[in-house]
């Protein structure tokens, strides 16, 4: 009972502490040529504290600039579907195990930042010289008064792979995306 109440308290604290997102206006709906023609696939690792889950994240951009994404585990079981538009993320589907108010709130916020600043910078990373130290994509130095605390998004390109990472230090959540080669025909 005490354990249960502690969890509820923790959930309430985490939810109430989640700050309102104020994304940069210029990045609300980034144009990402790499994912407008066909979806791009990433190996995704989502770590929460000491636990982690791997799977495939597929992302694409619609003509209205919304970024759509799907996360499934290796066996094809869906984790979540999201649509990022106008700086906000809508979780279209969330698997029952993740369907908790607190988890969804954290996911919505982090996916918004990851989409706007990380996935939205794929083109910029593709042009980056390989092997360089990761580029800090968020917080953006130009918008330091608007940015979220405790969140860092970085990107890099190594051996023709695009790597994007989000670190949410407050919630001990980390999302790593490593691009995968296109499927064979």
């Amino acid at each position, binding site marked *: 009972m005490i354990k249960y109440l502690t969890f509820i308290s923790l959930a309430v604290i985490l939810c109430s502490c989640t700050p309102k997102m104020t994304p940069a206006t210029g990045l609300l709906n980034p144009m990402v040529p790499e994912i407008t023609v066909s979806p791009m696939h990433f190996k995704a690792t989502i770590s929460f504290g000491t636990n982690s889950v791997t799977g495939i994240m*597929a992302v*694409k951009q619609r003509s209205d600039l919304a970024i*759509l994404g799907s996360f499934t585990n*290796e066996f094809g079981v869906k984790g979540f579907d999201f649509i990022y538009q106008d700086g906000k993320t809508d979780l279209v589907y969330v698997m029952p195990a993740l369907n908790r108010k607190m988890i969804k709130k954290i996911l919505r916020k982090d996916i918004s930042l990851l989409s706007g600043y990380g996935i939205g910078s794929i083109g910029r990373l593709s042009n980056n010289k390989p092997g360089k130290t990761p580029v800090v994509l968020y917080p953006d130095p130009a918008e330091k008064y608007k940015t979220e605390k405790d969140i860092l998004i970085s990107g890099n390109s190594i051996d023709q792979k695009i790597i994007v990472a989000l670190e949410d230090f407050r919630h001990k959540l980390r999302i790593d995306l490593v691009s995968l080669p296109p*499927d064979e025909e």
Partner: protein
Amino acid sequence: MSVQANAQTASFVNLEGSQREAFKNNLYSSSEKINTLECNFVQKQILSMLSDEVVSKGTMTFKKTDRLLWIYNSPYEFVFLMNNGRITTKSGGKTSSFDSGSSPLMKELCKIMVAGLKGDTKSLETSFNTKYLTNGTQIKVVMNPRNKSLASVFKQIDLLFDAGTFIVSSIEMAEPSGDKTSISVSNVKINGTVDDKVFDIH
């Protein structure tokens, strides 16, 4: 290739009564003779929201009674092992192991895969309502979850077997979200020698 083409063109008819029981018993007695099974697989995930398909390839190895090794070689290396009630995964050099009881979904997925590979559909009847259909050359077992928990993950699972050999050719899982995952198996080798060391994953 020709088997799959037949499956798409010939229509399936529902088996009932004694015909259904005969198919079930044949499948079951065939599954009982399987001590080891090795195969290649191609997995296609249809992501409905993105109108996208993700293709994965690898190998599967089963050894009686409940050891299942699932190795993905592409698009990246991922190893999944079910061995004596423990699940071990290895990805990117990291290995993690946990009791299968702590992940009911994975436990059920393993049960479905083992039953599907062997043809032991009887063992799934406590969790699924099953229908048996045939088009003459193949048997399709259509399974719908009986309980809410499973139904929240799987809308329907179809197992396709060769009607002559009772060897599985594909497993298709439809999710409530509209996504589908189909696993086509090939180069199936039954009762070959499988060293126990194969299942040592560290």
